[in-house]
């Protein structure tokens, strides 16, 4: 049984792109399209989740993801609680399930979970009562499905809904990136024409070609040729100390997205980045701020996409007999 879908194929929890059918991904984007209009209203919210309580449970720091989840919940009129667990209970020795039991005792309807360990959101989803929905806001190196869906939404806005004619390149630290993994699953599910990953050998899982069905390149000069979408990944600086990379300067020299490298892509290619960007490491400032960059649009779209996922997975009290 798919933990993420109910018996009618509707979203139940949102944990991972893998395992979700194409029509659910398309439905998320269609719903997000409608929610993006809410921002243009004089009153920038809708009463859909009035009376529901959403708890952002973040065991790992994040500003952008937490604030866009918070804003999305508020635009749906839900009550929102933000919990930064690393600074509270966990440091006092409370177990994950004890923390959850306490949150459930507050009559929460939805948990938005971020954790440094892969599989945490799914673990929680298996232990919550039937009326509670769980959304994965990033778990370890495993998945970051709302980021992937806001990226798909951004691509669709610029390139249309036929992903079959698109070449998409993901550049950077594939090995440690839950974003890249979720993006690749989403692009494959949406039947993208060609998905390329461009990465140093030290930052690429050995079986990525077989496991994820992507084309592998080790030089941006080869991989960026004629692509319609370039997704740059953030280089986490802590990787530098693990002997995987020589230096920031050298990374930029060989892998950084410069105007010259961007010119190899299709003339109307868009440049994306999940943020926060390291200027002068994985991307040149001129490119990040240039006409082809849609990096700030991604942030805006993140709110509408998260509203869609929350509204679609929120349990109604009429289903499954849940109280």
């Amino acid at each position, binding site marked *: 049984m798919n933990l993420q879908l109910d018996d009618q194929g509707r979203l139940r929890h949102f944990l991972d792109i893998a395992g979700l059918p194409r029509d659910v991904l398309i439905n998320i984007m269609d719903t997000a399209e409608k929610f993006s209009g809410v921002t243009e209203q004089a009153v920038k919210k809708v009463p859909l989740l009035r009376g529901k309580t959403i708890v952002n449970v973040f065991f790992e720091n994040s500003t952008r993801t937490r604030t866009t989840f918070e804003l999305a919940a508020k635009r749906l009129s839900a009550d929102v609680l933000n919990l930064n667990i690393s600074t509270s209970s966990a440091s006092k020795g409370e177990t994950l399930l004890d923390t959850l039991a306490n949150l459930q005792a507050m009559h929460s309807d939805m948990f938005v979970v971020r954790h440094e360990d892969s599989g945490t959101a799914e673990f929680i989803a298996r232990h919550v009562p039937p009326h509670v929905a769980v959304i994965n806001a990033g778990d370890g190196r495993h998945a970051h499905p709302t980021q992937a869906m806001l990226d798909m939404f951004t691509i669709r806005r610029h390139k249309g809904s036929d992903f079959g004619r698109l070449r998409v390149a993901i550049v950077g630290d594939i090995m440690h990136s839950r974003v890249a993994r979720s993006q690749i699953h989403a692009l494959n599910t949406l039947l993208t024409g060609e998905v390329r990953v461009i990465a140093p050998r030290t930052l690429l899982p050995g079986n990525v070609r077989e496991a994820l069905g992507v084309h592998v390149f080790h030089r941006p000069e080869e991989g960026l040729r004629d692509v319609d979408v370039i997704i740059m990944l953030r280089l986490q600086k802590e990787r530098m100390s693990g002997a995987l990379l020589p230096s920031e300067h050298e990374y930029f020299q060989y892998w950084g997205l410069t105007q010259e490298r961007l010119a190899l892509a299709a003339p109307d290619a868009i440049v994306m980045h999940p943020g926060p960007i390291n200027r002068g490491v994985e991307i040149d400032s001129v490119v990040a701020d240039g006409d082809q960059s849609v990096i700030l649009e991604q942030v805006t779209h993140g709110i509408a996409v998260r509203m869609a996922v929350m509204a679609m997975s*929120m*349990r109604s009290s009429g289903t499954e007999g849940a109280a």
Partner: protein
Amino acid sequence: MSDDNPAQTHQIGADVGLVLDSMTTALRGLCAQRHIQAPILIGIHTGGVWVAERLHARLGIEDPLGSLDISFYRDDFTRAGMHPQVHPSNIPVSLDNRHLILVDDVLFTGRTIRAAMNELFDHGRPASVTLAVLVDRGGRELPIQADVVGLRIALDAGEQIKLTGPAPLQLLRQGAAP
């Protein structure tokens, strides 16, 4: 719409075009009486938009037609969850201080109109809202009445009325035995 028993579904005799003509005349009269100039027409998805398109052309209104999808304003989310298919609402001009004509196909409980008015007021503060419906089938659960009604049809319990379109527009009555 359920067509598995065609004997229980039959077209309503009234010519929808003639009903729209009489609604147009009534709306013109009402606007003159209330000193309403340049009203904005807004249809409710899906049938209300079809009706509003016809009225928009017949009334010769210059401002583009607006459309509302009230999915995010429904009062039954906690019971029914989110409707799987939502259309974007499209309000092309500012509603502040404008006179609106809200259009729907069938007026029944009044809950759709309540939701639509809640949504409208999140877009701005109109000067007035006039309600025009193709069919009033009775059965109100809220204190909401239309200003202009094309047809009044008293339905038996369990009966439904449905507008099919977008072209041609036809009214179908279905449900209880004929």
